[in-house]
C-alpha cells in the first residue's frame, strides 16, 4: 500500500513527533510544528499518536491512494477536495483506491497533517521518521516531497480496520466517506487567538524592566524570515538590555524559546531550531501554545501573555489528558453502531 504525490504543494514533508535523545549531538528534536494536530490526526485513524504523517504548509499537495485508506486531515483550515466534493477535516475518512485528494490553500492557519492508517512507513533515522530539512536526512530522503514520490504505508491497526468497515458500510459508490463525527473543538488549542502564553525566560532579568513589560504587552508581526527553524518577529521598538553586551556563553535551547539578538527584535525558536544558542532568552512559550504558534505565517500578528511555570505545566498535563480522552472517544466510536 502506498500514497503517490501527484503535486507536492508548497512545502510538504514527512514528520512525526520528533527525535528524542539526540540533542546532545546537535540534532534537533524537529518533528511536527503543530504536534497537537499531528497527534489528533493519528488518533483519528487508529495510529499511535506520534506516527509519521505528511506536514502540509500553506498550499497543500495532491495525493493519490493506491488502496482503500483511512485518512484524517487536521490543523489549519485547508480547502480540500476529492473531485468536486469538499473533504472534511478533524475526522476519519475512508478514501477509495485510486482517489485523488487535492489539498489547496489554507484559509485559516498555515499547517496541517495528513495521517494515514498504518503510518508512513519510511526508514527510521535516530529513532524517528521526521525529516531534518536543514541537515538533509530522515523522513523521505531528507527532503521535501516532489511529484512522483511514492511513500509506503504501514499496516492499519485493528481499530483502524473497524473504523474503515463502518465507513465502508454506508459509502456506496462514493469516492470517499467521512465518519459522521469529528474531534471536539473543546479539546483543541486556542487556534486563531493570536495570543501565546509564555513563562519568563532565564535571562529576562538582563533586560530593562520596561522592555520586559513591552514584550508582554505589545503586538509582534511575523516577518517573512520565518520557517521551521524559527520566526523572526518585528515589534514597534527594539528590546533593550540593562548592561553592556548581549551575548552569553552558549547553552542548550529548544522550541518555544524567545531569544533576542543584538538588534532587539525577538526570534521565536520552532521545531528545527539549533540545539544551542548564545542570545539572551526573554521568554519561553508554553508547550500547550506551540501548536498555536505553528499556525502563524508571515504577516500574522501575535502577542505574548505571561503565565507562571506552575500554570504552564498544569495546562500541559490537562492537554495530555484531553488527548487520552480523544483516543478513548475514537475507540468508543469504532465499537458502537
Amino acid at each position: 500500500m502506498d500514497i503517490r504525490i501527484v503535486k507536492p504543494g508548497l512545502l510538504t514533508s514527512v514528520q512525526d513527533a520528533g527525535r528524542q535523545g539526540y540533542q546532545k549531538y546537535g540534532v534537533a528534536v524537529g518533528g511536527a510544528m503543530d504536534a497537537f494536530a499531528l497527534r489528533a490526526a493519528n488518533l483519528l485513524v487508529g495510529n499511535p499518536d506520534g506516527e509519521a504523517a505528511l506536514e502540509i504548509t500553506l498550499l497543500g499537495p495532491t495525493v493519490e491512494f493506491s488502496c482503500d485508506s483511512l485518512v484524517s486531515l487536521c490543523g489549519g483550515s485547508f480547502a480540500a477536495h476529492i473531485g468536486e466534493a469538499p473533504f472534511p477535516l478533524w475526522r476519519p475518512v475512508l478514501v477509495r483506491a485510486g482517489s485523488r485528494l487535492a489539498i489547496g490553500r489554507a484559509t485559516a492557519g498555515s499547517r496541517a497533517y495528513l495521517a494515514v492508517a498504518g503510518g508512513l512507513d519510511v526508514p527510521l533515522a535516530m529513532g524517528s521518521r521526521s525529516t531534518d530539512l536543514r541537515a538533509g536526512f530522515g523522513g523521505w530522503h531528507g527532503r521535501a516531497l516532489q511529484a512522483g514520490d511514492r511513500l509506503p504505508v504501514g499496516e492499519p491497526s485493528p481499530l483502524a480496520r473497524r473504523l474503515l468497515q463502518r465507513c465502508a458500510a454506508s459509502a456506496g459508490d462514493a469516492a470517499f466517506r467521512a465518519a459522521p463525527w469529528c474531534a471536539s473543538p473543546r479539546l483543541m488549542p486556542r487556534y486563531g487567538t493570536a495570543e501565546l502564553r509564555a513563562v519568563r525566560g532565564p535571562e529576562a532579568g538582563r533586560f530593562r524592566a520596561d522592555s520586559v513589560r513591552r514584550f508582554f504587552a505589545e503586538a509582534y508581526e511575523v516577518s517573512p524570515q520565518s520557517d521551521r527553524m524559527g520566526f523572526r518577529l518585528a515589534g514597534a521598538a527594539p528590546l533593550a538590555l540593562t548592561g553592556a553586551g548581549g551575548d552569553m556563553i552558549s547553552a542548550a535551547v529548544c522550541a518555544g524559546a524567545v531569544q533576542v539578538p543584538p538588534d532587539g527584535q525577538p526570534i521565536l525558536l520552532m521545531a528545527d531550531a539549533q540545539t544551542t544558542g548564545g542570545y539572551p532568552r526573554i521568554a519561553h512559550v508554553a508547550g500547550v501554545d506551540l501548536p498555536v504558534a505553528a499556525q502563524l505565517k508571515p504577516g500574522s500578528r501575535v502577542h505574548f501573555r505571561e503565565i507562571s511555570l506552575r500554570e504552564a505545566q498544569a495546562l500541559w498535563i490537562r492537554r495530555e489528558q484531553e488527548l487520552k480522552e480523544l483516543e478513548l472517544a475514537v475507540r468508543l466510536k469504532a465499537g458502537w453502531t
Partner: protein
Amino acid sequence: MQGQKERPGSLPYRLFPLGDRAVVVQWGETISADAHRAIRSFVQRLEEAPFPGMTECVAAYTTVTVYYDPYHIYMAWQRSGENAGDIDSPYAYVCSAVEALLSDRPHRSIDQPATVVIPVCYGGEYGPDLEHVAAACGLTPAEVVHIHTEPDYLVHMIGFAPGFPYLGGMSERIATPRRAVPRVSVPAGSVGIAGGQTGVYPLSTPGGWQLIGRTPLALFRPDREPPTVLQAGDTVRFQAISREEFEAWTSASSSPAS
C-alpha cells in the same frame, strides 16, 4: 583526571527552569576546568541513572540542560501516592531528583575522555583563508598550521549543527576575526577560525569563519550510533595530512564528508 573522585556539589551551582519541560543546572558563567569536570560527572551519573520522565540532557560550557516529560512525572507521582511535601509541580519533582543526584558522592571517577585525531589538509583549495590568517597574525602559513595542530583541544559541547564541536584551547596567536562577508556555502569538513575559536563544519552551511583546511572525516553519520564522531568531553588533536592522503581517504570511505 583519571582516578580522582569528584564532588560536583563542591562547586556552587544553581537550578532554573528552561520553558516548561526542562531544568538547567548552571555552574557559574565562566568557562573553567572545574565547571567542565562538574558537568561531566553529573552527565555521567544522569545517563547511568536517569530519573523516570527524563528524556535527555545536553551539556554546554557551564550548564547541563535536563529535558523531561511533565505528564509522565505527574502520572508516576500520582500512582506512587507519595506525600506532596515540597513537591507540587513536575518542575519541583525534577529539581529534587536532580539535587539528589548532585549531592550523591559519585561511586566512580569520570570516564577517561576519548581522544579523536582529526586529519586536516591545510591550505590550498581546502584552506582558502590560510594565507590571510597568517598575514593577519604576522606568521607564515606553516607556522599557523604548526600552532593549530600543536595543542589538545577540549570538546566543551556539541551544537549549532549536528556534530559541530565547540572547541577550547586554541592559541591566541592565530586568533583572527570572522570574514566581513560570510560565504554562502562552506563545504562540509571545513576547519575554521573565528576570533579565538576553532571548529569544524560537519555539514555544508553558510558561514563567516576563516577556512584554513578541510578534513575528509565525516563528523556526522545519521545512520550510525552514536551519529557523531565527537561528543562533549572528548579531546581533539588536529593532524596535518597531504593532499594525496586527503584524496585517498575520500575515495576509500563509503560515506564522504558531505
